[in-house]
């Protein structure tokens, strides 16, 4: 799953099988009822620079949307990884903590960061498990779910960053 739903937007590969948090550039992928995987999108990676270290809170830690679940270090700059969801950490990707470059090389795959159980599992199940086309959708607050909407947001963000000289053309 995933490869068939990837498109190139403004020069970046965008996976359309998951949700995105526009402010933090984190993605959320359903992994089962009430369970998600969280990672960073390629624009988040691009703006971070070459990743030197990544660390996460331990499994079992409660998560609150908008608060850090870890830290990322690039160019001697340590900054928070902000959780897009509320719940609890079920697992962290040890491969990424040993080799932060995985996030750059494979942001949608081997570079995933944490898996989490979500509060209000039934709501999450409804919102994150893919339903049949046209089915009722309940969105997680602040997460983009619609592929067209995701593409438009991502393209606009890249264009804005390029206009401001923040990333290369």
């Amino acid at each position, binding site marked *: 799953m995933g490869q068939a739903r990837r498109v190139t937007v403004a020069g970046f590969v965008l996976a359309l099988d998951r949700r995105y948090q526009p402010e933090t550039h984190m993605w959320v992928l359903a992994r089962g009822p009430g369970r998600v995987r969280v990672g960073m999108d390629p624009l988040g990676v691009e703006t971070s620079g070459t990743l030197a*270290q990544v660390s996460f809170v331990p499994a079992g830690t409660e998560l609150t949307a908008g608060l850090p679940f870890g*830290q990322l270090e690039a*160019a*001697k700059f*340590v900054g928070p990884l902000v959780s897009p969801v509320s719940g609890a950490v079920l697992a962290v990707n040890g491969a990424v903590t*040993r080799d932060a470059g995985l996030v750059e090389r494979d942001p949608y795959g081997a570079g995933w960061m944490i898996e989490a159980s979500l509060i209000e599992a039934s709501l999450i199940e409804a919102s994150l498990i893919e339903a049949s086309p046209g089915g009722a959708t309940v969105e997680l607050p602040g997460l983009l779910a619609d592929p067209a909407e995701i593409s438009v947001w991502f393209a606009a963000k890249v264009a804005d960053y390029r206009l401001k*000289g*923040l990333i290369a053309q």
Partner: protein
Amino acid sequence: MAEPLRPDVGALRVVDFGLSSPLRSQTLWHAIGYGVSAGAPTTLSFTRPAAPYVCLGYHGALDEVDHEYCRAHGLPVLRRMVGGGTVYLDADQVFFQICLPARAVPPVRAQALRMLLEPAVTAFRSVGVPAALDDDLEICVGDRKVCGHGAGQIEDAVVVCGNLIQRFDHERAARVLALPDPAQREHTLALMHRFVAATPVDPAAFQAAMVSAYSAALGLGAVPGELTATERTALTDLDDRFCSDSWLAGPVRPLLAAGTGPRARRVKVRAGVWTLASQHDGAQVTVSVVRGTVERVRLRAGGSDWPARQAELAVTGVPWGSVADVLARFGDPGRRLAAAFTSAGSGTL
């Protein structure tokens, strides 16, 4: 055209803490981070540690430090919240920190760092040091780094810190590192002498130049200030936290299976300058890598009939990524050494 820094309107608070204990030389400016996050103005602060100590970056491994040596010489070991490597700090260094709201900083880290370090470069130049910010975002004179720096986000504030190094004790800076391979310590010290330099200028003139440079860059008038009530509370909490074993231990790290794979130790002297030591299956390598090229190497593979010197010559001057291929020509010892090299140098050098 890059997006400019966008600090809030108001003043640039300038706080000179003067001489501080090793602990306070860290916690004072971390407290300012919490204060600026809570609404205190953009702040430029200074302090100088009253006594020497060792400081780990946020992600630094505790076992990078020779704790026995530090205990024997009364050197405290602390961990900061910002990035960078393990460093030796003492009273011959003046620390500076610029702290501003995160929303005022460009979202691209490299660009934020460049903008927040360029005023420091201006200050160095104002006091006669021909410094420049290089492509690795290090403040250098020629090839030599003259200012260590680190950066981080503390809640909703960004802080970039650095130092004026009036004198640098290269021997001690190398000695506090845990380096089981004596050859690596010798390599590290040699590269420190070559690539890290002091700039013995008048610290008062430097601080005045810093205030002027950051005030101009941020478009804020400089006003002397002191800690807010929020910051004083944060300071007390930070004093406790930074002295705790759990904080010193650092972020949670994944457990590695004991006894599996090559054992490697890497030391970054400055951007692009590394020493590495690694062992694998009886093979041992010690190497200095400068700008991606092997500059010095010591190879041991066991046995006396193996042409170690010939192999050392073969890999000297070779790009790091090609070393394993060159060593593969030296039979089984070469392959074991190649494995040790690969382990030591995984990732970017």
